[in-house]
């Protein structure tokens, strides 16, 4: 698999009011391959959103180098080529919808790219079908639910035909139903259209559904591995202020109480299986 996003030795800081530099990213190196579904976890201020903004050239590193689809993000002439290839979806769906009609909003990105009208029409219809919102194409955005609006925002990005989508806490403002809708859509795009997805989140259950989990803490990478491996480090995750999925936590507590359970349980089925076999052993 070819590399699609890469950060090498990236350091970045914001200037505070008293002119002091507040370092947010400390010498980060990260490489994401085409077709991956990666979650970036971390509590507030861990630098997870900041690294995401580096990948489509909203921010450029003060030290180190970031490339997206092989293009250096410091190259200002290529900035729109990067943004077309690496789409970004933000937390608040209300603040990223531009037009007053759903299909016009989805057309906004392709229109900016100067694509021919008939081709835009095709892409808009396809994108809306991909996120399951085709029947709402004539609605006004404010008539939709949060999850539906966020899916429209995702459609607006995929209509630009990107190779990679970065989602910055796309489910943080949604109810459980909207969260499920959005996550299903993301996984579908990743599996069926081979779009690389970087999902920034603080919901452990969402991270557990990804192929790979990167945990950030205080501007540094703490873990970069499979969800199964990452969530087995319950103690360390709790120390940096993160939760683990409920099943993992249950098994962890049981193990601490002296019950013999494997330490890499992730899904509910695995948990149920381990517990039943344990109970049968007791009987």
């Amino acid at each position, binding site marked *: 698999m070819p590399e699609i996003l890469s950060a090498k030795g990236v350091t970045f800081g914001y200037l505070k009011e008293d002119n002091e530099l507040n370092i947010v990213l400390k010498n980060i190196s990260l490489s994401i391959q085409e077709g991956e579904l990666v979650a970036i976890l971390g509590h507030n201020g861990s630098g997870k959103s900041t690294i995401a903004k580096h990948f*489509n050239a*909203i921010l450029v590193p003060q030290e180190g180098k970031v490339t997206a689809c092989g293009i250096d993000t410091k190259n200002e002439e290529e900035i*729109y080529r990067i*943004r*077309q290839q690496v*789409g*970004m979806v*933000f937390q*608040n769906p*209300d*603040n*990223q*919808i*531009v*037009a*007053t*009609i759903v*299909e*016009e909003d989805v*057309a*906004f*990105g*392709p*229109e*900016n*790219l*100067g*694509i*021919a*009208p008939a081709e*835009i*029409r095709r892409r*808009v219809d396809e994108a809306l079908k991909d996120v399951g919102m085709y029947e709402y194409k004539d609605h*006004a*955005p*404010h008539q939709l639910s949060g999850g539906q609006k966020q899916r429209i*925002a995702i459609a*607006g*990005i995929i209509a*630009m035909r990107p190779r990679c989508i970065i989602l910055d806490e796309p489910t943080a403002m949604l109810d459980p139903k909207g969260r499920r809708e959005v996550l299903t859509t993301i996984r579908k795009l990743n599996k069926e259209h081979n779009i690389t997805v970087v999902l920034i989140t603080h919901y452990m259950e969402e991270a557990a559904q990804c192929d790979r989990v990167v945990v950030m803490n205080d501007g540094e990478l703490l873990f970069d591995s499979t969800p199964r491996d990452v969530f087995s480090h319950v103690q360390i995750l709790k120390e940096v202020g993160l939760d683990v999925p409920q099943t993992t936590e249950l098994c962890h507590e049981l193990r601490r109480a002296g019950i013999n359970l494997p330490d890499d349980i992730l899904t509910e089925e695995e948990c149920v299986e381990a517990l039943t076999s344990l109970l049968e052993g007791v009987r």
Partner: protein
Amino acid sequence: MLRDITIGQYFPGSSAIHKLDPRMKIVLTLAYIVMLFIASNPIGLLIGILFLVFTYGISKIPPRMILKSLKPVVPIIIFTSVLNMFFIDGTPLVAFWIIKITLEGVTTAVVMSIRIICLIAGTSLLTYTTSPISLTDGIERLCNPLKRFKLPVHELAMMMTIALRFIPTLIEETDKIMSAQKARGADLETGGLMQRARALIPILIPLFVSAFRRADELALAMECRCYRGGEGRSRMKQLKIHSRDIFSGIFVAICIVGVILINVYAPVILPM
């Protein structure tokens, strides 16, 4: 309570007038206004009135909407009528002390009132039958040639679109802030004018702060979607001139030519 506010005065429908190209509608409305002001003969004005009756009939906009649109201009009509009646010289009808009402004054007053009423009713038909978004679209495309004179046509249209898009969002937000302030004991309903105006401050400040934050986020999201102004931008929906647009254009042209011919061949008896 704020939810009842409607944007603009658009009256959704599917009449021939609703379906006209917005550019055509804007141009024809302007042509109609010109026609009203060159009509210098009662028959010419009558054509203007019949034109309105005809178009309102096709559009199926309830006639009471005309009265509603006229309400705000009633003071202007009265004011200009009074001025015209008393200050135009000519054959006196009534005269006492320094006040004198002339025949010319009265005719001018009547003609001007008819013109203003027709003008408002005509332009209202445009906003009743055209959604704000296609109105913006039409204005943008009509003004495109003005780009040569450095007028930021695309930017203005984009601002209009975003404003329309955010009106419902900000109304919802205002509702939430009002409830939040009421829950903290804010009193928005009693007291004099000054007191009520002051009570609005704790609502307006959070609303403005949030509007600025939204603007900031929206700008970022637009940049991420490769927005870089009107340059090199294409549009999904192309406006096309259909036969109905051409027919309506011809119809208005015939009316104008008719008015001009009446002006030329019938004695001019009305003031311009």
